[in-house]
């Protein structure tokens, strides 16, 4: 009798219930960000719900300096993504497809940046730039971003290459494709989703980075995270929440679209 009531139901579903609670914990801030993008706060800070308003959505660039910082972050994110994806993809091919001397050393140099705290990476780069007399600004931020995004690109693309079915390339060769044709028509298209995922990851890492960027930026190169950090003490415009909401929705749509495309391809 005891095993059939609510107790056993609970035992069956306890993991699902915990998972649901954890999801709530994970998504709560996103809900708050969306909700408070429709707030009309009284003071400079947007912490307490006052009144529903779509003002911030109608005038997203009304917060002084915010859209400039957003534009800078987008530009840096784009350039850093291109740089890190090109460099990282080449390295990934070398590691996944070739046996060569110094391979384990290469793997170590790829792994270390991911295992180093950001504050150490940022501050060590600062000592380099100061030591060499390089002026801080957009260029130094870009150098730093390409550096820390690259390892993630290598790992992501390498996993994709290793997961490829070697028989597909062998089949192409059997059908008299030369190496170049095999690479362009078979290998690269198969690796492309991995490269795309790596590029997206790079962009979001670059776009979201505060700690490293702050060490290598100047007062004239304020990125979006730096703007938010400043706003946290000066006053948080509602427009920050609008941008946060837009990022969330756009990314969800992109992921949903990708899922749809890949799902359809799998079925075909």
């Amino acid at each position: 009798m005891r095993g059939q009531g609510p107790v056993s139901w609970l035992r069956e579903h306890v993991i699902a219930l915990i998972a649901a609670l954890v999801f709530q914990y994970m998504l709560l801030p996103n809900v708050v960000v969306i909700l408070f993008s429709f707030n009309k706060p009284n003071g400079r800070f947007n912490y307490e719900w006052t009144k529903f308003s779509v003002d911030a959505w109608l005038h997203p660039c009304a917060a002084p300096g915010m859209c400039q910082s957003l534009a800078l972050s987008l530009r840096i994110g784009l350039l850093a993504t291109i740089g890190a994806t090109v460099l990282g993809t080449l390295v990934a091919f070398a590691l996944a497809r070739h046996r060569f001397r110094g391979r384990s050393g290469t793997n170590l140099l790829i792994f270390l940046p991911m295992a180093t705290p950001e504050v150490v990476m940022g501050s060590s780069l600062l000592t380099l730039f100061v030591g060499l007399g390089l002026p801080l600004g957009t260029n130094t931020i870009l150098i730093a971003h390409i550096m820390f995004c690259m390892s993630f690109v290598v790992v992501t693309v390498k996993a994709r290459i290793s997961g490829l079915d070697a028989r597909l390339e062998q089949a192409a060769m059997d059908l008299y494709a030369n190496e170049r044709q095999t690479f362009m028509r078979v290998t690269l298209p198969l690796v492309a989703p991995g490269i795309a995922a790596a590029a997206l990851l790079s962009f979001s890492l670059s776009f979201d980075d505060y700690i490293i960027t702050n060490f290598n930026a100047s007062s004239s190169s304020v990125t979006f995270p730096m703007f938010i950090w400043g706003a946290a003490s000066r006053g948080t415009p509602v427009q920050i929440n609008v941008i946060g909401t837009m990022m969330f929705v756009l990314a969800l749509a992109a992921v949903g679209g990708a899922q749809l495309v890949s799902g359809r391809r799998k079925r075909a």
Partner: protein
Amino acid sequence: MSAVAHGGATTSVAPGAGGPPPDAAAEKTGRRWTPYLLLLPGMLWLAIFFAVPMVFLASTSLQTGSLEQGYVLTFHFQTYVDALQSYWPQFLRSFGYAATATIAGALIGYPLAYAIAFKSGKWKNFLLVLVIAPFFTSFLIRTLAWQTILSNSSPVVKFFQVTGLMDVLQFLGLTSNDQLMASKFAVIAGLTYNFLPFMVLPLYASLERLDPRLLEAAGDLYASPFTGFRKITFPLSLPGLVAGTLLTFIPAAGDYINSKLLGSTNTTMIGQVIDGQFLRVLDYPTAAALSFVLMLSIVLLVSIYVRRAGTEELV
């Protein structure tokens, strides 16, 4: 099913009917330099902008002088002694917070990863997206949202007060003055939250790879589900757990965004000190020494942990 397909693949490829072209030796000479050419640009970038800066950091920590008059390398090790004497509480606090957040992350991340891997059915992809979804919004914006969630007028604080959780936290010394904001609890909860996906994803990856037939076999041999979990699922998920704890602990120990935005002056972490010494106080040697010590202690802790996790002791 994939295992079966894989087995078939090996047998069909083994005879080598269509393998690489026969003139492999000739190609080999042409290819010898290919990997190095592929590596060169990326590795140069990492060497110049990751490895060399570490040397600059070490050198800066042993210099004396000032930013205006320039620094000279004098091997002044006293900087390390002074820096540690002044800031050891922030060091200890950082490692304590990071360790607590890592353990909390493992405790709540494990059931989540388990549920996604084994109980989600056709919702699996959707739930995985939900795990990374918080990432889509800038994490500074989300941390600011935590200020709202933990502020005194929020329902969360009311809930903690009504259920008596607040008293428990107060008893544990994690909060003070009957509020959540600007407390240890807020900082640790923020750290746990920010790095949770780094715990869940590797755990999920290792659980997903687990062959369900092993559990079926355990059941056939009269193991209870709990014994099956203890003897099969958990040990096989250890690589994921180790990866997850490292991916959480390392960035959490260096982070200072949570302690700055959700904490108070009593919760300052070492990253904040390094940031301040470099960018406000402009005492480069002290800042570099602190940064170097942070990295060395993390390397030390991690290597001890990895070595121990590699043996049966952890299992």
